């Protein structure tokens, strides 16, 4: 999907006979480095296959087929990423691929790898079928039997009786992943926009597919969709303005124009070309679009509602993978397209960072629903990561990469634990239900405590390494104030994480309290990976820090 490619076709046919132009019968095909796009292609292909599976494979076999297909596809894609990285595309051979649409460099590969791993883990939680009680002898996952059926209506009852399950979630997830893979790699604004839509649309749908509490789930979907569309409209308008300013949507070109290394095309257009109003407003709008995805204050308000309403596995998936992709895109935008504008966006971003860190932490204090709590904590964390983002140094990039990797696994793990604590109405997400969990099932409580401590940034957990890396980068980048604010924010944040731990361990369990379901190997794996990564990145982060360090360089 490369503009310039298509464009060159067009022009060659439009102006015949001009000297030096190839004859009409020889149409140069755009050069696409398929090998380097392999990760994306594999995932997209698998997704398409998944659709076909839905169409042709008998209902009984679909679940297993889909699960197998998606896991294999993601694994293969990850292998491809590793191969590319090993091939040096992240470092020495980094370059612009696919006629300028895709940037093939360190951050791309690192983030794609992270996204793929996170997605594999997330898909495990998608496929969990042990937690919900069997409906009419069929094991069911946490997705609705028939999305189209009215909640609590005859249709739904029938569907449940028939043992339908929404296996479409797997292809949907795969499409979303594909979008995420492209998002941080996008090297022109159009690709950015398309990728954004490709990753968002499936997520809107996924949000609506919860088996329990369907009304909330649908509400979440509506809110997410409307606000998402709203924000993407802004993003698009921003793109339009930047295009108007630079006459192109390719990052490199825009950066050049901003840098002033290219003269404006035509003096007649001087009033639009090089008109900084266009540039600044456009940049601001695009930033807004990305900050929305990241969930930064004041564009965060969808986060709590959507996180709460969406099916918990989807929430985990969003909180982890989407954030990674979005931050990747943000990084590239700020470092590749708008470095010339640093002195304009930095002060604004400072403000955003501060309100995000403090706002998220403070509002979380009084939350009573564990999923909302985690949502607000994710907002606070977005603030911490942004602090690293605006360091505007290679160090900043690598620290952010590391933080994202660390954070995503903790998040998925935490939400996976949330799926385990259940009562009659499905997951028991109200905090009061969690009282005394430590007495009932110390192991689960302990694991969750580990995740909470990681969120709180206690040393020897990945949370601390990440936070330290980011703050260090920020301080190096001359944002000492941000570090201090961040420290205060994390002190506030510590309060509510500790509150949960107190609740789990130091308060007597209620007799009618929730039960802790024993998960299958899938969720267990997800949680296990989360714990392992948390501790490894906490105790011996050296290797991964190096990795992120090498991946720090963008291609321009």
């Amino acid at each position: 999907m490369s503009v310039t490619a298509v464009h060159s076709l067009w022009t060659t046919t439009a102006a015949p006979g001009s000297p030096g132009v190839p004859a009409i019968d020889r149409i140069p095909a755009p050069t696409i480095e398929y090998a380097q796009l392999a990760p994306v292609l594999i995932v997209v292909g698998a997704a398409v296959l998944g659709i076909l599976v839905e169409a042709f494979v008998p209902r009984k076999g679909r679940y297993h087929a889909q699960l197998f297909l998606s896991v294999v596809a993601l694994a293969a894609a990850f292998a491809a990423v590793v191969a590319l990285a090993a091939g040096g595309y992240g470092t020495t051979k980094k370059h612009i691929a696919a006629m300028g649409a895709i940037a093939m460099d360190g951050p791309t590969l690192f983030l794609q790898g992270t996204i793929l791993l996170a997605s594999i883990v997330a898909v495990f939680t998608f496929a969990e079928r042990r937690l919900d009680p069997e409906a009419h002898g069929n094991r069911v996952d946490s997705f609705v039997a028939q999305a189209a059926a009215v909640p609590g209506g005859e249709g739904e009852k029938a569907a449940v009786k028939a043992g339908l399950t929404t296996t479409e979630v797997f292809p949907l997830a795969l499409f979303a992943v594909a979008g995420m893979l492209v998002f941080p790699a996008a090297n022109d604004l159009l690709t950015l926009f398309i990728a954004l839509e490709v990753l968002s649309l499936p997520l809107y749908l996924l949000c609506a597919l919860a088996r329990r509490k369907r009304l909330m789930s649908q509400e979440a979907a509506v809110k997410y969709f409307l606000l998402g569309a709203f924000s993407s409209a802004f993003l698009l308008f921003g793109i339009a303005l930047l295009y108007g300013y630079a006459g192109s949507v390719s990052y490199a070109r825009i950066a050049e124009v901003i840098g002033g290394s290219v003269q404006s095309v035509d003096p007649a257009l001087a009033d639009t070309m090089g008109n900084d109003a266009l540039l600044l407003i456009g940049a601001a709008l695009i930033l807004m679009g990305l900050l929305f995805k990241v969930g930064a204050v004041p564009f965060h308000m969808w986060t709590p509602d959507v996180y709460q309403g969406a099916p918990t596995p989807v929430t985990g998936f969003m909180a982890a993978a989407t954030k990674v992709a979005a931050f990747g895109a943000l990084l590239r935008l700020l470092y590749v397209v708008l470095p010339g504008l640093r002195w304009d966006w930095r002060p604004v971003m400072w403000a955003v960072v501060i309100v995000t860190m403090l706002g998220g932490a403070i509002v979380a204090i009084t939350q009573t629903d564990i999923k909302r709590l985690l949502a607000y904590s994710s907002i606070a964390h977005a603030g911490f990561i942004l602090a690293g983002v605006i360091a505007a140094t290679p160090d900043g990039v690598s620290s952010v990469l590391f933080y994202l990797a660390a954070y995503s696994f903790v998040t998925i793990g935490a939400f996976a634990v949330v799926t385990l604590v259940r009562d009659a109405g499905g997951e028991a997400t109200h905090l009061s239900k969690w009282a005394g969990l430590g007495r009932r099932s110390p192991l689960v409580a302990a694991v969750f405590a580990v995740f909470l401590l990681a969120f709180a940034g206690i040393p020897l957990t990945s949370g601390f390494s990440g936070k330290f890396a980011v703050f260090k980068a920020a301080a190096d980048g001359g944002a000492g104030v941000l570090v201090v604010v961040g420290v205060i924010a994390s002190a506030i944040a510590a309060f509510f994480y500790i509150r949960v731990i107190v609740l789990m361990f130091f308060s007597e369990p209620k007799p009618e309290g929730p039960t802790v379901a024993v998960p299958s190997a899938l969720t267990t794996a997800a949680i296990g990976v989360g714990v392992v990564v948390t501790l490894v990145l906490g105790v011996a982060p050296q290797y991964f820090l190096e990795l992120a360090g090498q991946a720090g360089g963008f291609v321009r």
Partner: protein
Amino acid sequence: MNPVYYLYLASLLFTIGAAGVLIRRNAIVLFMCVELMLNACNLAFVTFARMHGNLDGQIIAFFTMVVAAAEVVVGLAIIVSVFRSRHSASVDDASLMKL
């Protein structure tokens, strides 16, 4: 005619759309307003393409239309299902989750 007028028009449309999103209550109308915003963007793209004398903008406009169509598919699906379960298309009724 000065192409800048087209830009004014585009931004006007965009603003109308945004205002609509903020003001109207019916989910469908809301959604239409979003579409209006997208189209405003299209207009801007095309205008800029014309001013710059290259076709990127026009091509982008096509992509936008496709995306808009996809959004319609997804959005209507969601809105309809919500409507069926609540018998109302008002966004404000969907406020179970708050605080």
